[in-house]
């Protein structure tokens, strides 16, 4: 195998890695703040992809440009999920918490199946097509734009999380609900914000991914397992870890894709289980 192919695969892996990181950050943000895993995270992603798809069909909007709209919509869905479901099960046994978001996943996937059938859909009108040369390597323009947008979105999120007062309040809540409350932080508001942010980031990621993948009701399951792998590898509660792990998973998936295309996700899941066995805390877990 020649060097150009290897470098091309690595570059592609890094680019997809940024997108995977963005897909996974919301999952880890909500877990970090509330210790609840949103099993419907993949369904959020799937709905965002459909939003981008339908905007493309009806208004001709490029999926990448649909990101603000899908981010807003899924952010709102996150807020609703918190208000209507999560708030009611927070005091319930752990089993009930697990069931509730899993039920939401089943419901949303079935809803998409009901509304839009199981047909595979492909975004046809894209503003970015063709191939560009980057450091002597050939890269699809659509993928490059997607990666750039994912990097930008992640950077904004990092800035918000680390530099703003609300972001710091979120971090404080993640460390201890009680201590945060004693410091005058409205933890209920922080929970709501984490769900809005979690929804908005995965919503934007969905729009970015819409032009690269076929869209169908259960597409989210594929990505959510990938996102679990990213979050577990990066360490629960660590947003920075999620970014690194996204890059690693992106690389592994692309390399495995060359050698055993049918098993590329099986390789990722196997890695996920390997991490559980050998380093349950992940790379940067608390």
């Amino acid at each position, binding site marked *: 195998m020649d060097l150009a192919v290897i470098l091309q695969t690595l570059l592609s892996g890094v680019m997809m890695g940024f997108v995977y990181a963005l897909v996974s950050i919301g999952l880890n943000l909500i877990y970090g703040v509330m210790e609840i895993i949103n099993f419907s995270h993949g369904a959020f992603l799937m709905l965002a992809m459909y939003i981008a798809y339908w905007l493309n069909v009806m208004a001709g909007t490029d999926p990448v440009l649909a990101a603000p709209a899908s981010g807003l919509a899924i952010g709102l869905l996150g807020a609703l999920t918190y208000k209507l479901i999560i708030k009611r099960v927070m005091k319930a046994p752990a*089993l009930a918490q697990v069931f509730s978001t899993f039920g939401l996943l089943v*419901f949303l996937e079935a809803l998409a199946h009901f509304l839009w059938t199981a047909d595979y859909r492909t975004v046809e009108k894209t503003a970015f097509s063709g191939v560009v040369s980057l450091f002597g390597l050939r890269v699809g323009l659509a993928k490059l734009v997607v990666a750039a947008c994912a990097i930008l979105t992640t950077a904004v999120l990092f800035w918000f999380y680390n530099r703003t007062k609300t972001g710091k309040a979120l971090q404080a809540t993640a460390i201890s609900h009680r201590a945060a409350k004693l410091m005058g932080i409205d933890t209920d508001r922080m929970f709501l914000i984490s769900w809005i942010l979690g929804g908005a980031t995965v919503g934007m990621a969905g729009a970015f991914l819409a032009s690269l993948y076929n869209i169908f009701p259960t597409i989210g399951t594929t990505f959510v397992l990938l996102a679990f792998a990213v979050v577990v590898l990066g360490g629960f509660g660590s947003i920075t870890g999620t970014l690194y792990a996204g890059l690693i998973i992106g690389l592994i998936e692309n390399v495995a894709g060359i050698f055993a295309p049918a*098993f590329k996700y099986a390789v990722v899941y196997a890695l996920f289980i390997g991490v*559980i066995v050998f380093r349950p805390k992940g790379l940067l877990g608390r």
Partner: protein
Amino acid sequence: MTRKPTKETLPALPGSSLLKPGFLVPLLAFVVAFPWVFQRSTFQNTAILVLLYAFLGQAWNILGGYAGQVSFGHAVFFGIGAYTSSLLLINTGLNPWLGMLVGAAVAATVAAVIGIPAFRLTGHFFLMATVGFGEIIRTLFVNLPEVTRGAQGVFLPLLESSIKNLMFRQSNTGYYYIILVMTVALFAGTAWLERSKLGYYFKAIKEDWEAAEALGVNATRYKFIALAISAALTAMGGTFYAQWVLYLDPYSTMPLMVSVQIALVAILGGVGTVMGPFLGAALLLPVSEVIRVAVGGGGRGISPMIYGLAIILISVWQPNGIMGWVQARERRAPQDQTGGAEP
């Protein structure tokens, strides 16, 4: 002389009013007479589905309800059971009943291997790992056509109709009674388990595994036992399914939705109770069959939509399922069996 606690001195188990002869005898009479009373094939098909899912739900309940390890990957064990007996039947002509036992052993072994990493996790994370393993193993089934015939699927050979062959080509009645016997036996076994030492170990692990360990219960060991029993039983249900439907493929036999349905039957009925899985199956399967017939074309996602909504509503309003409601009624009813306790 030490006094050991006897059955009489133990507190009544929640939901035990459904385990009294007054409820069980009429119920048994009804299920035994069912195929004579309702002869239409749609009724009989639905009844077989109810019993099969009651069986699968109870198998899940042993791990998820009693030992508290919630799995959304049981379709894997179901598929392993179905495929093992069917492939053995096709390739070696092994009798399906023996195939069922081999399938159960294979499933228990696979379960033990899965358990090694998965039992390092608890709660949310354990559930996540079971979903992950479900997807990995299904991917293997699709992509190893030399063994499983991949996406093409497996057609079972037609054998002479007999109990020995676990095959009936003319009517559903034979299948009905076989799954009825299997289900009644499993439910009787679970009722015994609830009062056995093993059952108490399971419950101790579920409530507080650290306290259980401190009291000398090897939590990990009993989690493995619960998982192996649960997986083996689920695989037996898989063999029955294969012999009944006569066709298997990875997409229809072991998708995530089958795992969901197995778990939901127990969750809806009430986890960790003997009668819960039966009540859940008796409510869920007929409803989803009626929807399927009414809407047509596989329901186009309506059944899963109702499943999803049902799971959300149960977890928000009544985490104990139908049995939660039964228990609330028992508490309100006058306690007639507490004689002698009051001063």
